[in-house]
């Protein structure tokens, strides 16, 4: 609750700080505001279950932990923003303000207790992302991505709104508790209005987390958007989206599990296949990361489909491990692509990484750890993420799904290792890339956290 109010107000403050002559205050101010929001987030840690806005918004330890992951990821991404000061076209105040506002939307999605609040959160998050996607105004690809994202996103939101209307029509309530009691009362005599509504809401939400077959926008949008905002999209939208999906399915619709799990399991397998197999054929590292984000949505969907007691923990841990690794990957991509730029545009292909390790051992190491974590190799956080996801599926006896997932992880190793091979084994001449000290600290911190949670995953549960 506090971070929502704080970031709404501080976002406006950032917007108005943009009127100052010096743009250099914006970055430290935004980072400070994120820290303030993080402190505000933990103010309610020991208060148990709280309800706000006439029961429309809930705060408990789970939502606070999700908030903390989102805030921490945002802090790292904002800390990595660079070059806005030198760019005449850039509007750093507006970018930072939009980032803070979009976090407000993410918090609403994480803690909603009422479908109206979910819709509001999705919209606040998405509208900010549409603008950030198109923020590189002179780049045609960025414009195309923004338009595509906006049109498809608007459709998905419309479908979700229709689903919410049908859910209201069936149960007579927008609140999760109201729908839950309707579902438990009418388990025997199904309401088709409710089923249709649930499916439409699921379609809307699965679009936002880019699960197949609603993934078509992902590669183009991730590719076209400026890398720093792609990192923001890949981590924060995904974490918030899965938090919202988990809340919806575990809270209101656990009574009709038998209805939605077959649908979701088919989509899960489809997402895993599409994400991993198409990623193999990519020549651009950034586009590969887009498909990898689709495939990680697939792994998270496994946890959602199994919906056991472990699911909560699995989704939390997986989204955290995925966020840290993705931030590292983009954190290495941005300076390397800028160094190797072709015709004034950053070069985001695999070739840009050739021979990176020779003069940039730190960047190559960060890249390696993040790729190992994304591939799910032991001693990284990504391994335990996959482990928790699979063990929740084992508990539900969804063995066939695990077989598909393990096969697809093997495919994943191929394309994740391609960039490691390029960095260490291929010939290439990359000069030593200068990195700002703060940028370096963020990269090292994210890498160390990935290894730390890989060595001791219990630390995370202990902190809860």
């Amino acid at each position, binding site marked *: 609750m506090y971070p929502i109010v704080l970031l709404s107000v501080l976002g*406006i403050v950032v917007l108005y700080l943009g*009127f100052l002559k010096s743009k250099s205050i914006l970055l430290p101010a935004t980072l400070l505001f994120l820290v303030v929001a993080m402190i505000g987030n933990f103010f309610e840690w020991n208060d148990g279950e709280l309800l706000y806005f006439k029961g429309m918004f809930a705060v408990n330890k789970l939502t606070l932990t999700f908030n903390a992951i989102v805030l921490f990821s945002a802090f790292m991404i904002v800390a990595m923003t660079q070059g806005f000061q030198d760019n005449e076209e850039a509007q750093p105040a507006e970018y930072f303000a939009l980032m803070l506002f979009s976090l407000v939307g993410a918090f609403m999605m994480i803690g909603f207790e009422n479908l109206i609040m979910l819709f509001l959160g999705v919209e606040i998050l998405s509208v900010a992302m549409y603008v950030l996607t198109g923020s590189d105004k002179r780049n045609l690809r960025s414009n195309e991505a923004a338009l595509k994202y906006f049109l498809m996103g608007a459709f998905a939101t419309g479908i979700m709104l229709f689903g919410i209307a049908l859910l209201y*029509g069936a149960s007579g309530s927008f609140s999760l508790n109201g729908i839950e009691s309707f579902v438990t009362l009418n388990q025997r005599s199904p309401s088709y209005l409710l089923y249709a509504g649930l499916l439409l809401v699921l379609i809307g939400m699965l679009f936002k987390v880019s699960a197949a077959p609603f993934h078509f926008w992902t590669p183009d949008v991730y590719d076209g958007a400026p890398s720093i905002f792609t990192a923001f999209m890949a981590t924060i939208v995904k974490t918030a989206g899965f938090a919202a999906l988990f809340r919806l399915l575990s809270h209101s619709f656990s009574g009709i599990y038998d209805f939605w799990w077959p649908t979701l399991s088919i989509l899960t397998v489809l997402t895993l296949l599409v994400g991993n197999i198409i990623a193999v054929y990519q020549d651009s590292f950034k586009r590969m990361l887009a498909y990898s984000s689709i495939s990680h949505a697939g792994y998270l969907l496994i946890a959602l489909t199994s919906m056991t007691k472990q699911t909560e923990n699995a989704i939390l841990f997986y989204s955290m491990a995925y966020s840290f690794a993705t931030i590292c990957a983009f954190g290495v991509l941005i300076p390397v692509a800028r160094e190797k730029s072709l015709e004034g545009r950053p070069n985001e292909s695999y070739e840009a990484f050739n021979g990176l390790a020779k003069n940039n051992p730190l960047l190559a190491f960060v890249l390696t750890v993040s790729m190992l974590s994304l591939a799910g190799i032991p001693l990284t956080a990504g391994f335990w993420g996959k482990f928790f996801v699979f063990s929740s599926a084992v508990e539900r006896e969804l063995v066939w799904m695990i077989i598909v997932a393990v096969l697809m992880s093997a495919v994943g190793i191929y394309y994740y290792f391609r960039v490691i091979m390029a960095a260490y084994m291929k010939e290439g001449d990359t000069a030593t890339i200068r990195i700002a000290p703060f940028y370096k600290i963020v990269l090292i911190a994210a890498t160390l956290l990935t290894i730390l949670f890989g060595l001791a995953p219990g630390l995370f549960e202990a902190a809860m």
Partner: protein
Amino acid sequence: MLTDFGILLLFILAGLGLLGLILGIGRLLRPDRPNPEKNATYESGEEPVGNANVQFNVRFYVVALLFVLFEIELIFLFPWAVVFGNEDLIQQTDGRWGWFALAEMTVFVGMLILGLAYAWVKGYLDWVRPKPAIPATESPVPAALYEAINKKYESKTVNKT
């Protein structure tokens, strides 16, 4: 017993029926003598020129956006006004209710005003955007001197890429 949706259906049907009835009566009663003048599109008494399917200036969208923003604000003001003037609530709280409601609305309108002010200062409300003024400096130091210094310390400057 009708459900709420049943009433809605009846309402829609009644609306369609009434529309059909009125148009039908009009059709039966009116004389039918068309001419090109009558068939032309009516646009505020102006004579229509060309096709309506043309590109509009993008600035209209900014105006439309601001209009929608403040229209929504007005829509929120109406239900608020009803609660604000509720005599029972005012008497129960010795008049503090009014101040509370006023403060809440001030926060809401204040947020929107901040947004408007931002758009104003940025110049999005000006129909004719002013040309950017390129600042010119009159320095007694000749430009060649700067270039010489830059060249001299070229190797030491931080590569900003």
